[in-house]
């Protein structure tokens, strides 16, 4: 196991992590401030990927067109969902919210099957990013570097927004004590819509970035939604910092685990055992991590301080 390989896997984990961060930032704010469980967040990611693919294929391979379709498109979609479905659910029990947003998942899966057909849709990596960079002698796709760059830029931007602007101050206050914020005369409805729209746009951005790597198909939102939920639970609900570090931890643990655990097991056990057991345990690692965090620090690793 060379340093080159280890470093490459670390980068892969970082790339998965920033993708998860884009998704979990929105979800954690929605859960933390609006106290709404939004399972349809994965569907927003899926719609972002579909809009991006539609824009890409309609404008003859233009990534810019894909971006213009994906991010504003998901933002609008998010606002529509918030106004039509979620506005009625703020006062309701979490279970009712789960039921309603689960219904949205099913709805969106059928909509994409209806509009784009049952087979997968594909978009390519933009030609100016389709090469590889040489990393310690191993090739690493430039596009994945771009994903990391975009994710980190979004992280910095969110940090500036949350910590350095007035709106960010209101968001932090809302995460800490939503009733007090409302009592102080802030338009909490407007704030909620803004937060939800921001989350939706980020999910759309994640869909746009992931589109060229994975196949865009109905139901692609669910696996990533599960990972996102693991991230926000591990990081701490309502906390952007928790979403950031949680996403990086989950991304890196999952990737390093998948990459090196089977090899490690083969050193300790007989080959056929390692081959049977290795992939299974590797995919369980992040859930074990989440369980451990919940057992030791139930509020998450970087919880919001509730005043």
């Amino acid at each position: 196991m060379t340093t080159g390989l280890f470093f490459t896997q670390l980068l892969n984990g970082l790339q998965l992590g920033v993708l998860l961060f884009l998704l979990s930032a929105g979800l954690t704010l929605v859960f933390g401030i609006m106290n709404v469980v939004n399972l349809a967040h994965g569907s927003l990611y899926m719609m972002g990927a579909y809009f991006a693919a539609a824009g890409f294929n309609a404008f003859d391979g233009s990534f810019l067109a894909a971006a213009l379709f994906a991010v504003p498109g998901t933002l609008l979609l998010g606002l529509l969902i918030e106004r039509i479905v979620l506005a009625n659910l703020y006062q309701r029990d979490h279970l009712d919210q789960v039921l309603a947003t689960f219904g949205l998942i099913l709805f969106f899966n059928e909509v994409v099957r209806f509009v784009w057909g049952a087979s997968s849709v594909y978009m390519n990596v933009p030609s100016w990013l389709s090469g590889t960079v040489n990393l310690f002698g191993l090739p690493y796709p430039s596009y994945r570097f771009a994903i990391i760059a975009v994710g980190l830029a979004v992280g910095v931007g969110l940090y500036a927004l949350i910590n350095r602007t007035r709106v960010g101050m209101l968001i932090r206050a809302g995460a800490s004590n939503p009733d007090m914020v409302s009592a102080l005369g802030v338009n909490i409805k407007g704030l909620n819509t803004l937060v939800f729209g921001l989350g939706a746009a980020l999910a759309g951005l994640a869909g746009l970035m992931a589109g060229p790597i994975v196949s865009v198909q109905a139901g692609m939102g669910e696996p990533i939604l599960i990972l996102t939920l693991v991230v926000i639970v591990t990081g701490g609900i309502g906390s952007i910092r928790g979403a950031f570090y949680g996403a990086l931890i989950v991304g890196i643990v999952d990737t390093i685990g998948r990459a090196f655990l089977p090899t490690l097991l083969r050193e300790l056990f007989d080959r056929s055992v390692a081959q049977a057991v290795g992939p299974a345990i590797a995919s369980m690692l992040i859930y074990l991590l989440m369980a451990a965090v919940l057992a030791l620090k139930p509020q998450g690793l970087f919880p919001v301080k509730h005043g």
Partner: protein
Amino acid sequence: MIRSTVRGAAALALAAAALGSAQAQAPIKIGFMAELSGPQGALGQDQYDAFMMVVERNGGKLGGVPVQVIREDSQLKPDVATQIVQKLIERENVPIITGVTFSNIMMAVHKPITEKGVFLIGSNAGPAPIAGAQCSPYQFITSWQNDNQAEVVGKYATDKGYKRVIGMAPNYQAGKDFIAGFKRMYKGEVIDEIYTPLNQPDFSAELAQVAAKNPDAVYVFYPGGLGVNFVRQYQQAGLLGKIPLLSSSTTDGSTLPAQKETALGVISGTFWGPDFDNPVNKQFVEEFEKKFNRIPSQYAAQSYDAALLLDSAIAKVKGNVADKQAFGAALKAADFKSVRGDFKFGNNHFPIQDQHIFEVAKDAKGRVSLKTIATPLKAHVDAYASLCKM
């Protein structure tokens, strides 16, 4: 009052039908069941289109006898497939069922079909149990035995002198079967077998490992959407020109339209390619492209041959498929010219055929397609034929 009117109408209809059937031969009902929805629907659709192309070309007949093809979608659910088969046999009284795309569906419906004496003309799935101990005289498979597509690539890898190969497949039964089939014929060293979760779309971690180990070649089995993702990511990681990519069922007519140029140079192994130079195949490919505006996949070719097989057998028994002895013998004789050249059934009613190696390349019209480059296995008998008592 309405009830008596309905009864009267029913009586009239029955009489008319009796009169009608006395004059014309009743059409032979053929049940066609395949995956026709979801991402795997592309395979079943190819099977159906090719089958119906033969039927329509003959004016709705096979073997000179009118046929009625009942189209059913098994939705990749074994319980749905079993219900469909029961309905076809008990309500529609079909003597023949064809299609059957996936192996898990085949394992669910094989016994219910064959134990009722209904002929099963399978045109895709060929799982090991039915090639071996569970074989039935009522089964006739026009595709291949699942392991064949892996075995031919294993032989090719040995012939090319690759000493160190990494195998990759999804972590389920078919994935393990394909890697095992490859190892059966490959005489070099498989330095690693990587099984990825079935729903994992991103192979970056595994591809980094492959790059680090730098094998002589990589052998993969990633069907459908997984195949599209894998090949694209293999190319994005810069591995496509450096480490030869050998595959089964990963670059075929169903995935090439999405993979396009990213798959150029990938090697695959199967029994048929669109560039086969015999008159039956030339006619098949030309007609299919003209009618459906896409290059036929091997799944279409398999189903086309199933229709030709039924055409020849029904003609031999002059439409009397109720005589199961004679019809079975006519099917076994396989007296037709296939898109793959000559066609012969083995003792387990699986084809004994050549297996070829293909490379993804542009054809004469500049489209991404498969080019035949080698025939490592000639008249290959599958590994389970000796276990079949027929």
